[in-house]
């Protein structure tokens, strides 16, 4: 556990070093980035091994910072944050591996990337609201430069939209939280102080403040209809950034909802639950249907991310302990799976074929040109469909149990979402990799043209894919590994509002 609090600082230091190393050579910058990411992985791994699940937040660092406002530099961890820290470590390492071929301004790229990662780590580890917000905002600006500087389709527009939506969301959050601080007379910015302050607010104020904070975070989580930045932004972003943005940064929003919005304002939450749930259902189905008709490979993945995040938000909306646990597990699961999907689209396919148009890809025998990519994508696609054996299934199962306990009608929408997800995933697997040349002739006598030479994946690509696949399969077959952390954390007094109508 002792290495954990150093992760954000170490990653920031790595960012600065990468910038300096980049001035010398691209290889040096990559090495620095790899070492930094591995440090995060190591620290998270050690913490995971030594972690004893409890319902309390375990403090790692707690020093006064800005005494005048009662703000402390307070880092703490519980099962929920640790799961997400592990996710970040895995996603960041895989991201570095899949960025091995970035050629321009490598030092700056990794510096921005690592700053983003540091911000994300910081959010998950913060136990002081102000500190959490600072890390949240630190993560915003690097996004712009990563996407605008190294991205692809409509990158400047995509970057600006991404960042402005994120910032607007954070502005809403700031408004709600500072209002709570002021109106509730909080003595500081610790979780406890603001929860008490929120409790002192009147009913109407509580409902309004919850609305601000929740929908502010929900914007970053991609809740319908505040999701429109996500497909555009993720498509525009370079591969590693897409992996991190869709995989982890969207989870910042959901984490904010789970850690702050719901526990601080249980009264407001109860008033908004139905709205949130229906919006989530709408998002799941709408994004899935839109994904079904996309022509750009990456857009399919972008919309599928919105659909999966809808599941997370739906789980949160039920307010059931089971579903909250499922939502957290889904955050982890989708983080890994989205990483895989974007890695295949961006790094494996686009960088080699220079097209993401499904119509063009269909005409190529992709599964023979890139057999490794095909295999990885099939596995990732199955995981994305929620096939049992991969991490998405236990997560969706838990969320569904919560939905059944709270509002069964949503379950129908959710099941519809699962079906649509299956359909569009299958469609994109087909068209991207197994297009017109798919039918292997029935007799061995007619063989297709022998001119197709398969390209092997590079070592970094294989390592990255292996890391992510191992994560999703391991958790798919043994979700206890994470659920044993997450479920006790949900027994904390902060989650006293969560119902337990679903038998655990």
């Amino acid at each position, binding site marked *: 556990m002792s290495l954990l609090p150093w992760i954000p600082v170490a990653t920031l230091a790595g960012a600065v070093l990468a910038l300096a190393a980049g001035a010398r050579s691209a290889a040096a910058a990559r090495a620095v980035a790899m070492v930094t990411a591995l440090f995060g992985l190591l620290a998270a791994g050690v913490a995971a091994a030594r972690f004893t699940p409890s319902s309390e937040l375990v403090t790692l660092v707690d020093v006064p910072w800005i005494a005048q406002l009662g703000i402390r530099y307070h880092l703490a961890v519980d099962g929920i944050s640790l799961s997400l820290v592990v996710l970040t470590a895995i996603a960041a390492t895989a991201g570095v591996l899949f960025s091995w071929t970035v050629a321009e301004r490598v030092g700056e790229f990794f510096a921005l990337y690592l700053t983003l990662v540091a911000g994300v780590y910081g959010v998950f580890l913060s136990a002081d609201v102000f500190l959490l917000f600072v890390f949240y905002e630190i993560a915003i600006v690097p996004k712009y430069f990563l996407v605008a500087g190294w991205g692809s389709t409509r990158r400047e527009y995509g970057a600006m939209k991404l960042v402005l939506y994120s910032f607007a969301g954070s502005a809403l959050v700031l408004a709600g939280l500072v*209002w709570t601080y*002021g109106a509730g007379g909080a003595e500081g910015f610790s979780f406890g102080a603001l929860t008490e302050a929120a409790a002192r607010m009147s009913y109407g104020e509580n409902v309004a403040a919850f609305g601000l904070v929740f929908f502010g975070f929900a914007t970053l989580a991609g809740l319908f209809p505040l999701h429109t930045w996500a497909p555009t932004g993720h498509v525009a972003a370079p591969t590693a950034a897409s992996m991190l943005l869709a995989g982890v940064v969207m989870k910042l929003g959901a984490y904010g909802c789970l850690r702050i919005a719901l526990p601080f304002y249980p009264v407001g939450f109860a008033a908004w639950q139905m709205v949130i749930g229906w919006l989530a259902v709408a998002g799941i189905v709408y994004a899935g249907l839109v994904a079904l008709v996309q022509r750009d490979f990456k857009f399919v993945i972008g919309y599928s991310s919105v659909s999966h995040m809808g599941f997370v938000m739906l789980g949160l909306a039920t307010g059931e302990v089971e579903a909250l646990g499922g939502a957290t597990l889904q955050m982890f699961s989708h983080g890994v799976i989205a990483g895989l999907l974007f890695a295949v689209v961006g790094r494996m396919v686009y960088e080699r074929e220079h097209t993401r148009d499904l119509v063009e890809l269909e005409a190529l025998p992709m599964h023979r040109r890139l057999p490794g990519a095909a295999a990885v994508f099939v596995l990732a696609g199955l995981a994305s469909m929620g096939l049992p054996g991969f991490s998405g299934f236990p997560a969706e199962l838990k969320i569904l149990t919560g939905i059944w306990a709270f509002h069964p009608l949503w379950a129908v929408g959710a099941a519809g979402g699962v079906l649509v997800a299956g359909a569009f995933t299958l469609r994109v697997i087909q068209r991207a990799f197994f297009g017109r040349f798919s039918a292997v002739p029935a007799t061995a006598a007619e063989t297709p043209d022998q001119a197709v030479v398969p390209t092997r994946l590079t070592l970094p690509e294989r390592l990255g894919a292996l890391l992510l696949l191992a994560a999703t399969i391991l958790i798919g077959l043994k979700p206890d590994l994470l659920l044993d952390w997450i479920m006790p954390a949900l027994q904390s007094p902060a989650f006293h509002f969560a119902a337990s109508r679903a038998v655990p």
Partner: protein
Amino acid sequence: MSTDYALLFRALLPEALLTATALLVIGLDLAWGPGRSRGSRLQMAVGAGLLGLVAAALVVWQDGSQGTVWAGNLRLDLLAVAVRLGVLGLAALSLLGLTGARASDQPAEYVGLALLATVGFLQMAVAQNLLLAFLALELASLSLYVLAGYDRGRPESAEAALKYFLQGGVSAALLLFGFSLLYGITGRIDLTGISVALAAHSDASLGAVAVGMVLAAFGFKAAVAPFHPWAPDVYQGAPPMSAALIASASKLAGLAFFWRILWSGLGPLSATSSLTGGAGGGWVPVLAAMCAVSLLLGNLVALAQVSVRRLLAYSAIGHAGALGLGLLAAGEVGPGPMFYYAATYGLATVGAFACLALLERAGDGDRIEDLAGLRRRSPLIAACLAVFVLSLAGIPPLAGFFGKFVVFAAALRIDGLGHPAGWVALLAIAMSAVALYYYLILLKQAWIADDARARGRVDVPPAAALGLVLAAALLLVLGAFPALLLGRF
């Protein structure tokens, strides 16, 4: 009385030092200047000026806060010390930035005027007496009018100076009128006495007029709507470091100045309806409304700008709205948040203008597209500009973020949304999202866009570089450890 004069002189030592320095600078230039290049004359002047500023700062620091001096006419409290140090620092940074700007014909006079303006700022921070206050204000303002028009080669500079002078003059007149009304109502010219007298009896209509005048003058000084029209032209037309001084030190001093007048002096007229009669609510709601209009107007119009300096001007108007919010909140939590915001805002602004000065010297125009390719042309300027712009945008861990945060927290602390300041705070948060857009446009040009014209590298003199780095570093340090500054209050 003799001991009083000694004490008085001691209290005003910084002003005296600066005045002496100003004269010294001009004298040195007369003696050794003729025949030397503009550049070396500038360096001499700046060097001497910096020495004076540093000396003054040391004196201020050593003396610390002393309470009231000279029969209560000067107040050397914590805010005064802080503002004085802040003003001196900003002036020093402006002088450093001046070395990177295009050298003018008479650099020494420029430095001298800047120093005299600083004297005025120093006085504005401590005056407790209407006459002294006005005197300080005018000293500063007159110097600034000249500085604004210093670039005789460009008609925009003259236009800027003229507009500044005309509007400034009107606002000074209004202020004086307001002051005389206050004297008429209360019979006193010291702020504490005025406050007591106002609390005692009411003279609704006259009080309202006086307050109105004061607010108008404040609005002009801080560029708060609807008294802002001079700002875009002055920011665009004046020589860059003059604009820097106007935008930073002048605003800081002005805030302190009006804080004293509005809270110490006109405190009783702030919110309660009985004293100002009629519509109910004193200057607080009015100021809140002005801030709200400023925030909206400044940020929304900035979106449409194509000139960097005008964009900074409109963003300054937006920031002025937030600074005004700090002023409003100061009644509840003291001047700490307001000072922090103003000081760090000043740092970022001086830095930004110093960058622009360097670019102007290299021959760039003032359009946003002219920033393109800055990353290659001068990584130092690009990096520092990023720090300054992001601080203005309010991105952590830079000081601008914390300044906004602490002001908003203080504003909402007064009475949540029951007080107009709370609503203005929410508006300011919303506008900060709008502002990020145009700030990112600047950085996009500097860092992402490629320079179509493939211009050469920008030369940065060491003193200017020092100034940039110092400002950026301060923003980083103060942003990470705000208690360093805020803890003093």
